[in-house]
């Protein structure tokens, strides 16, 4: 977002541009003025997809608020009013609820891409931090949004998650005071719903702000690329527009097809059926599960026998991403040239997916039918240990000790080499 070389030819545009150089800003951020590495693959589409989903969520969300009532007696009915009576209300609500899930899918892939290709490494640490802040804000927003329909899972999810903060019980009554503060009462109730509604509306705009910082931080060093080497010469880079705008639009269009399949043909598959039962503080559903995007962390929480340390472990499992740039001591960014790192990365991914799967299981469910049966709790503990070991042991050691493959001298050279071969 630095200085721009944008030169409007139209006089009126130039007049405006001299007074507010916003077109130049766009030009140098998302237009032809931004030079991006020429070798970005389709994994680099997910950043713009995440931006698109943020806009979709804000537009549909603002519309839903026009018809929703944040009150325990009316919220559930208000959502059904949207689903049944409001023109296209069902479409807007299903887009918002499935959009939330797809937003997380996109952001998870975006984060994993950053991990695999070393996008968190110097000089992009702050860019990585800002991304993690966006992710944390998304988690908070998603959680509070899930409470708003005021179904059974809304209520009991809110109860369980807020109770986590009661673990910080360092002196008599401290945990309870924190909970009363969060709830605005003695349990999840109308004040809780109203504050969650207020914050669920606010946080997306905070996310927009951090996204702007995220893009700003991106434009100083420029995008990383699959080779992980710095783009230096003029042959290494191409203008963002038209090359990456065309590529992003193609990716976006394909992604919308996937999104549409969910919205129109399986709109409730990402949700929980119990949320079509109105919240009832007297009856807990037999099996409470959070939204799918929190499941790995939920398993880590359940794996620790102590309440306080369970909560700490759960928060640590997310916050540990902040120190990843220093845990990784390799001089090479991309896992393309670090076969051992790549191997452990995929193992980490599988393990995290398995943690998510375990999140849906009751602790005593038998997962592996051997040695008298290994239950979900034990497997959760093993997986949680591996999760942390990946960060604390595997990444620091492997990144410093592994033998790497030769890295091409420049992006342009690698393109020429590839063309010679193919």
């Amino acid at each position, binding site marked *: 977002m630095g200085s721009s070389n944008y030169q409007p030819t139209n006089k009126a545009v130039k007049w405006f541009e001299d007074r507010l150089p916003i077109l130049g800003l766009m030009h140098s951020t998302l237009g032809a003025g931004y030079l991006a590495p020429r070798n970005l693959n389709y994994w680099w589409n997910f950043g713009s997809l995440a931006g698109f989903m943020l806009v979709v969520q804000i*537009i549909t969300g603002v*519309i839903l608020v*026009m*018809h929703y009532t944040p009150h325990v007696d009316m919220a559930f009915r208000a959502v059904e*009013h949207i689903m*049944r*009576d*409001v*023109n*296209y*209300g069902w*479409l*807007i609500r299903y887009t918002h609820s499935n959009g939330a899930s797809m937003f997380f899918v996109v952001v998870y892939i975006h984060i994993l891409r950053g991990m695999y290709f070393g996008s968190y490494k110097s000089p992009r640490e702050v860019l990585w931090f800002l991304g993690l802040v966006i992710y944390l804000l998304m988690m908070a927003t998603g959680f509070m949004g899930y409470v708003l329909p005021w179904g059974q899972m809304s209520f009991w999810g809110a109860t369980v998650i807020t109770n986590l903060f009661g673990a910080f019980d360092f002196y008599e009554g401290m945990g309870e005071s924190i909970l009363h503060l969060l709830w605005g009462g003695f349990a999840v109730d109308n004040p809780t719903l109203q504050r969650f509604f207020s914050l669920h509306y606010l946080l997306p705009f905070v996310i927009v702000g951090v996204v702007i910082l995220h893009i700003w931080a991106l434009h100083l060093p420029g995008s990383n690329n699959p080779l992980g080497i710095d783009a230096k010469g003029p042959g290494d880079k191409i203008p963002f527009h038209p090359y990456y705008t065309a590529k992003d*639009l193609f990716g976006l269009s394909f992604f919308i097809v996937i999104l549409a399949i969910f919205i129109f043909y399986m709109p409730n598959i990402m949700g929980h059926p119990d949320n079509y039962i109105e919240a009832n503080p007297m009856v807990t559903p037999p099996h409470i599960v959070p939204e799918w995007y929190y499941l790995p962390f939920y398993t880590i929480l359940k794996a620790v026998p102590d309440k306080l340390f369970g909560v700490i472990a759960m928060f640590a499992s997310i916050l540990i991403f902040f120190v990843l740039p220093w845990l990784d001591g390799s001089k090479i960014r991309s896992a393309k040239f670090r076969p051992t790192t790549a191997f452990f990365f995929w193992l980490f991914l599988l393990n995290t997916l398995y943690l998510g799967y375990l999140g849906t299981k009751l602790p005593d469910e038998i997962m592996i039918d051997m040695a008298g049966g290994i239950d979900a709790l034990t497997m959760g503990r093993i997986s949680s240990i591996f999760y942390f070991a990946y960060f604390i042991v595997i990444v620091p050691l492997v990144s410093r000790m592994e033998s790497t493959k030769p890295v091409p001298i420049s992006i342009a050279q690698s393109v020429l080499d590839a063309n010679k071969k193919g």
Partner: protein
Amino acid sequence: MTTKDQVEQEEGVTRRDFLYVATGAVGAVGAASVVWPLVDQMNPSADVLALASVEVDLSAIPLGQTLKILWRGKPIFIRHRTAAEIEAAIADNGAIDLIDPEDDQARAERPEWLIMVGVCTHLGCVPLDQRGDFNAWFCPCHGSHYDISGRIRKGPAPRNLEVPKYAFLNDTTVKIG
């Protein structure tokens, strides 16, 4: 040689332009069709539209009384007029102080039932019953006097009280809206 190259290039240009323009057009159609649901959601919803017409049982309104009901968020006055009131209303048909001249016969399909939207045509207050110079309706906000036919006779209001669309389903039931 140059000509061949030129032809190829030109063909390439036209084909490329067509592809870009066509894709842009399809994309624009798509974007435009997304806009409609986002706008239409602000129109009255199905439950609101369902209340757009109401049926009123007239048998419960005694002679000389006004029933007030809420219709589309506004009060409706249904006046069961006495013979004297009907006579007075018709007698005033040509009165010189009519600001918005209208015959009583045009305002009441059946003379004994006067059905009007109870909103002053000046600035939207609800006129009071059996008040004012004509002992009919009087708007307290800025002093508009209406007669027993709901016609404006004195005060700042520019038009007579509005008569909504209605139809008698039978002798005792009227459908408003």
